[in-house]
């Protein structure tokens, strides 16, 4: 159960090695924390992250999770619920950036990216939402992206999956609110992390820690969306309405 300060006891990170996801977990850590589950594809990398979170009072478990295998998701979530009881926060941070040069021409690569970022994200989120709705409380944090706000030519498959995931998460959030479940959609801009290593930072770039601070603040304030950094909200509300002929010519990377 969350306490009155919005400090969760049990945290599940889907995409358990994600820099942003782990930063959110660290930001949520408090004396109330009892269990953290890192669900990830690369469990040995997950174990290294777990080692840094573990303490006398906090149990940390690493479990295998393949976003591209939706048929395994219900069992995964139910298994965690069975071992730890109520889950207070689920963070969905599993996602790939993909190489746009490949995913825009290679059918298999596009499918894989779409499966992980959209299909698999939807399936595991529905599984988590079922559990949280039955327990009558809990929060789901969905890591979307500003890339989904208006999809750019530079990475249409990635942007498209985030646009779909973002829309799904908002609708789901409205549906499950009456069941005591809070869905928070986080829209980071360019975050300097493992996912973007080697890429040239875009304007208003930020860090996983900054995204995490804004996310936890948004969670505690009961917000439905968080932009990181906050200024991107205004940038993108303008960009959304730029006419297409001009939009195409904008130097957006």
């Amino acid at each position: 159960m969350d306490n009155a300060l919005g400090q969760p006891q049990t945290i599940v990170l889907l995409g358990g090695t994600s820099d942003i996801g782990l930063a959110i977990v660290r930001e949520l850590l408090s004396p109330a924390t009892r269990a953290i589950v890192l669900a990830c594809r690369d469990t040995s990398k997950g174990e290294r992250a777990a080692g840094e979170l573990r303490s006398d009072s906090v149990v940390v478990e690493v479990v295998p999770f393949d976003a591209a295998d939706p048929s395994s998701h219900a069992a995964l979530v139910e298994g965690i619920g069975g071992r730890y009881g109520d889950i207070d926060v689920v963070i969905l941070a599993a996602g790939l950036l993909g190489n746009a040069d490949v995913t825009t021409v290679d059918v298999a690569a596009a499918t894989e990216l779409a499966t992980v970022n959209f299909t698999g994200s939807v399936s595991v989120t529905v599984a988590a939402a079922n559990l949280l709705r039955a327990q009558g409380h809990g929060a789901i944090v969905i890591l979307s992206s500003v890339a989904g706000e208006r999809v750019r030519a530079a990475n249409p498959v990635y942007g498209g999956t985030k646009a779909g995931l973002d829309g799904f998460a908002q609708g789901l959030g409205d549906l499950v609110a009456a069941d005591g479940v809070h869905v928070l959609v986080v829209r980071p801009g360019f975050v300097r992390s493992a996912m973007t290593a080697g890429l040239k930072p875009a304007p208003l770039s930020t860090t996983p820690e900054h995204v995490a601070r804004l996310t936890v603040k948004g969670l505690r304030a009961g917000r439905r969306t968080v932009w990181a950094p906050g200024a991107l909200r205004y940038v993108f509300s303008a960009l959304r309405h730029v006419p297409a002929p001009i939009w195409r010519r904008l130097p957006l990377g």
Partner: protein
Amino acid sequence: MAAVRERLHGWGRTAATAAEVRELAAAELPEAVRTAGPRGALARGLGRSYGDAAQNSGGTVLRLHGPVGDAAAGPVDPVAGCVTVAAGTSLGDLLVAIVPQGWFVQVLPGTRHVTVGGAIASDIHGKNHHVEGSIGNHVLSMRLLLADGSVEDIAPDRRPELFWATIGGMGLTGVVLDATLRLLPIETSRMAVDTDRLPDLDAVFAAMTEGDDRYRYSVAWIDLLAKGAHLGRSVLTRGDHARLEQLPPGSGDPLAYRSRQLVAVPPIVPTPGLLNHATIAAFNELWFRKAPRHREGELVGTGTFFCPLDLVGHWNRLYGRQGMLQYQFVVPFGQEATMRRVIERLVASGTASFLAVLKRFGVANLAPLSFPSPGWTLALDIPAGSHGLGEMLHELDQVVLDAGGRHYFAKDAHTTPAAIRRGYPRLDEWRAVRDGVDPGRVWQSDLARRLDLLERSSEM
């Protein structure tokens, strides 16, 4: 018996969760208990506990239709001085029924808007704890609906373990259907009150230690924004029910009684609420200055004396969307230095608290989870969104526990299972009695989940 999924929170308006809420009559209870799902059931009264004590996320929450008005209480037994009352009746409705007959409840907390069932579940205390103890001391018997649907008549000499596990048991032993309460005879519906304005904490400790025993009721309102030499400055109010001869001649019916509310706060309050550091500081200053240095025998109504905040309906909304948290703890006598340390820490944090309350507790009763124990108790409201609040409360928890103190379930909304295990060493004894009457864990609550109340602790 329609079930409606509803989001519920406590009086602090934090950590809302959803449950199936069933409005029902007592006769429908066994059926509702039998059909409760895996997350069990819990009775909810008027929702005045501050945290998650009356919530049962994903499970069933039972709201009992109680008789209201004149039917709230049976006739007072004038010889035994007691009354049998349905558990869903509020103490306010009970007072309306009994004060004109010359009786008062033995224990009244800071609000009349609590049910008899909730009062027993929390083993509430009032300003007279140092003399009369908590409400459990005045329950002569009660009927308890058990998890198997049977009804047990329990009293201090009938199934005493179950009786005392239910007193302060946070609704986790069963549903109290009705209770027979010992009452206090009164001659008038007025209070005769002495007021002292005290300049600092040492003066408060001294005045209460020296003089409390002469009064039935005693409480100090502390200004937690006063610093330095003024640290702990307080207004101490003490008194008793006025006797007939204390009323001025021609004051009409000495037992006239009406409960009232002057205003109510509307549902929507501008973010981030109206109670912030500036408004609270202004209020506390005004309130301290308006108190007389020393005044004796002032006659006031019981509402003004016991429940001043009841004059403002839904005052909890003043804290805005983030809600508020109430922190209440007790430390044993001899731990005045600890109390000072806690107050210094609260003052230093700049946490704006609106009328903190300091009181001396008398002897504890036999209930394993009863909160009051001999010592000093401090209760204060804090806006839940205050910066650094989590860290500070955790730090204060350790100070309180190290001093042999503990926290109050009816107020708690933040602490941890470990803090409860330390503060309530008889927890396992309570669990054993509870499990004996509810092996299938029908009775559950968010408080129980958050604080592991139902789990037998092997890791202790």
